[in-house]
């Protein structure tokens, strides 16, 4: 989706101009990934639960992470954290099922962002409808570290939109949602929803998509990667 030389250049430039050493390490660790086939790329599926859909107003409640190595998901490396928020979760509780008292031993947003950078360093992020999650992460990283950072990502929804349009010509309401997309690949239905299960569900969808597109050994990372503009 983007030229990998341009991406590499952009990462290198960003790491030069950033004054934050955490970011420098983060960006440098990514540069070697783009020209590899997916089988050898280090990927990290991510899903967030939020209090709403506006990255400027709403807050992150939890983060689920699952790495994808060599086309499989090691569940013993799956991670899930809760984040303490300002004020009550309010009405959003009806959506994600997380209520205030579950957040008792949660991390602060500062801890959570530092933890996130450490966990995902050297990994390309994968998410379903990624621009939203990425925007939340970038906003929070900017407010914690005083500076924004580029996060290259793979969006399973964008992949699915392209494949769906190619096969069906036009989109149907809701057809690109995670559950419906998974159904098309005969992936099982996961009843419970939290950030971790959704991250796993998204990672499984990517594997199914990749297999349908020719396999993890033939597709290269940069063919799928996008950056938030």
């Amino acid at each position, binding site marked *: 989706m983007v030229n990998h030389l341009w991406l590499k250049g952009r990462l290198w430039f960003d790491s030069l101009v950033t004054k934050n050493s955490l970011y420098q390490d983060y960006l440098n660790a990514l540069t070697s990934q783009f020209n590899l086939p997916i089988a050898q790329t280090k990927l990290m599926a991510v899903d967030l639960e939020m209090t709403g859909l506006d990255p400027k107003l709403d807050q992150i409640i939890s983060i689920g992470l699952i790495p994808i190595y060599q086309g499989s998901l090691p569940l013993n490396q*799956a991670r899930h954290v809760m984040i303490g928020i300002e004020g009550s979760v309010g009405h959003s509780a009806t959506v994600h099922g997380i209520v205030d008292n579950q957040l008792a031993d949660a991390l602060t947003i500062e801890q959570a962002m530092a933890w996130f950078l450490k966990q995902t360093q050297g990994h390309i992020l994968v998410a379903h409808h990624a621009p939203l999650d990425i925007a939340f992460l970038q906003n929070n990283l900017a407010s914690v570290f005083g500076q924004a950072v580029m996060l290259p990502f793979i969006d399973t929804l964008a992949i699915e939109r392209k494949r769906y349009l190619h096969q069906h010509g036009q989109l149907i309401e809701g057809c690109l949602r995670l559950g419906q997309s998974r159904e098309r690949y005969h992936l099982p239905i996961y009843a419970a929803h939290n950030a971790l299960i959704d991250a796993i569900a998204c990672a499984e969808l990517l594997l*199914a998509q990749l297999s349908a597109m020719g396999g993890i050994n033939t597709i290269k990372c940069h063919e799928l990667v996008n950056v938030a503009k």
Partner: protein
Amino acid sequence: MNASELQPIEQFLQTHAPFDILTPELIAQCAREINIGYYSKAQAFVEFDSVNPKLYLVRSGAFEVRDPHGVLVDRVAEGECFGFSTLLSGEKVVNKVAILEDGLVYHIPQTIFSTLRASSRQFDTFFTRAFAQRLRNEQKFKAKDLTTTSRITSMMSSNPICLEANAIVKQAAKLMRDNRVSSVLVQRNKQLVGILTDRDLRNRVLAEGLDGETLVEKVMTHHPKTVLPNALVFETMLMMSEHNIHHLPVVEDGQTKGMITSTDILRSQSSQPLLLIGEIDRQDTIEKLIHVSKQIPLLLQNLISADARAEEIGRILTSVTDALTRRLIVLNQQLLGKPPMAFCWLAFGSQGRQDQVACSDQDNGILLAHEPDEYAAAYFEKLSHAVCKGLDQCGYVYCPGDIMAQNPKWRVSLSQWQKLFEKWIVSPDPKALMHASIFFDMRAVFGPQSLFDELQDSVLSRTKDNDIFLAGMAGNSLQQSPPLGFFRKFVLERDGTEVKGMDLKHKGSALINDIARVYALSAGIKEVNTAKRIRALIDRNIMNRKDALNLADAHEFIAHMRLANQGYQATNNLSVSNFLKPQDLSSLLRHQLRDAFKVVHDAQSGLKLKFMRSF
């Protein structure tokens, strides 16, 4: 991450056997160690990681396990597993797993699999059973039904005789004569255009008054039916019978790959016991008989892989030996002339008991109706030497102990045989007892049954309730014990350097034969086959029914393990022996084998108690 966060995965485990019997803690522990993989049909086969074997639990999709020959072993769908054979046996993956439908597979690493097996006996048994079942399936699918699963490439002739279409009939006939075939394929530009058979020469040439100059093209069958090289024998047979044809060219992409005839198929079936015995009876020279006997090892292999009962295998192979022996006697009589008196050809030992495996030693003798004169002695000397030699050439090697009809000691009259048995029974010294264990398992393979009965009746009347003799026999049979050590661990035999394993014949089957023989002789039972002896002992209330049934089961199980092991040795080009290495067994089979040896051990104690009390 707390335990419930992998809920969908845990839920899946909780609802599928054998995980459903695990505690929630173990399920959570297992779920955390799972590696989720995705398999696409486009990959065709699952690639196995030989360094880190794992259990594959199918979450979605469909898979097929096939053995190295491509024969179906198992179909696996949601909630079912594959890969456990390697985990249980520690052997390399040999089976291939084909991906029929895309799907998710949970990889469960060996370490956690071992933890689960160790923590739940039921969980462990589930997989050892599944493993044993799959082993049986593998063998069953392989050979039980040779016709339905094998492909014609294995039996077609791959260099068919071909001719150009512009040749004349005379050339075709000559070609067929010189190559001793009943048909030729007709080609034009290397493409098959027709077939000409014996029948065509008769019906379309000779009967029509055509001469040898006729073009082949004019009388051949145009565009004959053909088969693909990967066609099943079964399909091919069906096609031949449907169209009433006996010759099928094997063609792929227009290229002639071979030719298969009904005779080829028939020949491939001839390792079936009945057909083999029929063939033995038809042979009119000793050379041909020797040639036919070469099929016996194949017959054994087929029987083993068809998972036949060990007792049946022994009876079938012995029937073949009996048939061969009888045919050898008849053919030699044709050379030597009519025998000067009635006689029985006696089979001893394993042939007597009908528990032969392939290529056993010979143990035989001749029972003459009365004392021979000089002519008769010479006649039987020639006959016995010829038959023993024939048996040797057929794969039944000369007996190292010289218990053979060609030894004049074992070629005597009824009264002499009676004296010999009498001597063994009255003074049971160790040598006599050793002889007795071979000679008491006797059967007449050829000759008048009444003559044999006279000998056997007199012997049994002597042994029945003969306490001293029976105590000697019992004592002799207690010299060896089953290979169980303290705490019922297996005791293995070594020959200096290498562990040979457990001797399933001498420390297993033979001990049961001994036990059954002592009881049978004590009761005057005529049966010599061990299973039949045990049944007769139950019928006459001589042995406790439960103990006797256990002993019969143990006999079958140990014999089965011995045969299966020999089948394994033979197919892997190892030297065939009676030694089994316990580490080659699954834990379930090991458990069962230990139980079987325990039964033998108990039966020995029973024997000692019953026959050796006062000695």
